[in-house]
């Protein structure tokens, strides 16, 4: 195998294999001390402590999206949604509160900061998650690119849902169309004149997750939000940790026509593109219809679909049935790059 990378590259933050390897090599080694619950070594969406007969879930996320404003949202909405959704993926869909730490570049416009603050407030209200404490720092011009927003969230729950809980026979459910966020950001970033509306799906989905958990209960075996690295990375991580194989029925993937066309033009697989308002779930087969109906009854889950099934063969791999053939779904190694020729 290759030696360790000397320098951190963009791929180490892209959500794929390179990032996971870096975290394992640097941070998990340092903080591997086991806790009673879910800790760093589990590399789940957050941590969980046992408190009496309940669980206290905590998660944190720093947001650096470029451009800061994109169709369907901005960095403020993203900062709230990202953390609320990570809590929800642990089964903790009723956040107690959030912290918010911002680092701002000297010269940043007050008006832009206020716009970001307003959309944070709106998203926090949607999620029922108050921001309860924070921190503000300013750095010199050129020392960072505009603004970095970190949010941390805490919540109690009775049962935690892991990303490692898939079992043979479980149905794989996605809560809606995939690739919307990444394509919207990419088309804005590269000024692509694409046909149709490309709008990010960024939203807090804790209410949607509550609906699924209320309908499915213990039959919801695993959850993960397919953010950076897209659905492909989320599925790989879940399959590897759960020691199952997954077969995905590609024609059943909910995909907006505009996203499909843009992804094809850019030469990028929609399954490698980030989502910011979606979840992928494992559901026991006898509860799949029930959970699907509950998801579809919610405005953010109208396009929810069963897209695959867990199998005993090829543990850790994702087999993609394309409708006209079958192949393995590869995990993204670096960043999704638009095709260059």
């Amino acid at each position: 195998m290759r030696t360790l990378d000397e320098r951190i590259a963009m791929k180490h933050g892209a959500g794929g294999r390179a990032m996971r390897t870096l975290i394992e090599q640097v941070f998990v080694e340092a903080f591997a001390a086991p806790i009673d619950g879910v800790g760093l070594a589990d590399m789940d969406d957050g941590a969980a402590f046992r408190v009496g007969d309940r669980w206290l879930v905590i998660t944190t996320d720093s947001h650096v999206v470029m451009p800061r404003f994109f169709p369907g949202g901005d960095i403020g909405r993203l900062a709230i949604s990202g953390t609320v959704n990570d809590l929800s993926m642990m089964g903790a869909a009723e956040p107690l509160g959030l912290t918010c730490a911002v680092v701002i570049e000297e010269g940043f416009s007050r008006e832009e900061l206020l716009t970001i603050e307003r959309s944070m407030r709106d998203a926090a209200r949607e999620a029922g998650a108050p921001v309860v404490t924070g921190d503000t720092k300013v750095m010199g011009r050129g020392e960072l690119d505009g603004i970095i927003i970190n949010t941390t969230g805490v919540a109690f729950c009775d049962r935690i849902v892991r990303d490692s809980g898939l079992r043979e026979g479980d149905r794989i459910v996605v809560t809606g169309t995939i690739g919307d966020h990444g394509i919207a950001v990419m088309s804005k970033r590269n000024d692509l004149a694409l046909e149709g509306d490309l709008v990010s799906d960024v939203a807090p989905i804790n209410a949607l997750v509550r609906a699924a958990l209320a309908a499915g209960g213990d039959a919801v075996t695993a959850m993960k939000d397919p953010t950076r690295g897209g659905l492909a990375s989320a599925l790989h991580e879940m399959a590897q940790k759960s020691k199952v194989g997954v077969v995905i029925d590609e024609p059943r993937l909910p995909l907006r026509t505009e996203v499909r066309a843009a992804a094809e033009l850019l030469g990028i697989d929609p399954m490698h593109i980030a989502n910011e308002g979606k979840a992928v779930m494992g559901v026991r087969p006898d509860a799949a219809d029930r959970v699907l109906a509950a998801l579809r009854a919610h405005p953010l889950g109208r396009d929810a679909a069963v897209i695959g099934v867990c199998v005993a063969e090829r543990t850790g791999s994702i087999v993609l049935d394309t409708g006209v053939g079958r192949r393995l779904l590869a995990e993204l190694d670096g960043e999704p790059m638009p095709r260059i020729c």
Partner: protein
Amino acid sequence: MIPSSALTRELKFRDPEGARALASSLARNVAAIGRPVSLMHVCGSHEQAIARYGLRATFPRDLNVIMGPGCPVCITDTPEVDEAVVLARRGMRIVTYGDMLRVPGSSLSLADAQAAGARIEVVYGALQAVELARASPNEPLVFFATGFETTAVATAAVILDDPPPNFFVLSAHKYIPPVMEIVAEMPETRVEGFLAAGHAATITGYALFERFVERHRIPVVVAGFEPLDILAGLVQLVEFVREGRAEVRNCYPRCVTRDGNVRAQAKLWRVFRPIGGKWRGIAHVPNGNLRLRDQWAHLDARRRFPIDLASLWDNAPPELAQRCRCGDIMAGITSPSACTLFGTDCTPEAPVGACMVSTEGTCRIWHQYGGVPELRR
């Protein structure tokens, strides 16, 4: 831009039922032949579609579909990369397609030269290269032009359209038909039929293959790039093999005609002349390289600037490169999974061979789409 309506039209060629019917016809025909059959395509876009849609999992075991020398980036020969590197190191402004940057030369790639301070820019097409030259008229700009006849036509078009005097071309363009003759005669490949690339044939027309078929007694089928196009093309090829017929058949009639785009051909041959030359990993290919005709000598970088290739020879070639099997892979003799570097020492992030660099390279495509494991039902 792909309009949504065009996409909907293409989806028809990804219909699962149609694919199943063609796959079973493929199986019946190969079973009737009763022995292994090897077919070759010569196009990165065909390999992309075969891998993307997992078509190999639907092929019968006795059918071997090989990707031949169909990646223009991969077969650009080392001395050609060296020429661009030498010009770049002399301070010339070089523009080229993005995939060319990391293709290894004898010791340096263009990306290496760039890291050491050379001026190299990526363009998406010949027209953009001309625009860049026009924007800085006092500075010579060399367009390192690569690709098969499809992209060579675009280069020819800008040359005929009165480019500015500071625009120069370093042509590494290649012409596909002659290399099919070479591969057809290689004893190791035993190819019994060729799937020809639909987009190249829209320019050349399919009549071009008639002489080839006569000479080599090997059938050629022109096919498009949607999964059903490819399956239908393969079914036609195995039918020809089963019946012992050597013929040309156009299975892409919605784009390809017998004579092709005559005006584009006229442009191509007004600007370029075919000469013999080596293709990386393959062989010397008579008439396989496209060079500028004498009429265009004033914008031919090779004739305008001294290029001292020996200046690169002091640098030792990278050690891993000696284990690279790109040549055998492009000739269809072996496959990426048989290479010890594939997926470990050689990845798209840190490619060793040209086939892992280009999005049209076999290794890169296999890596992107999970290789070719046994996934038959």
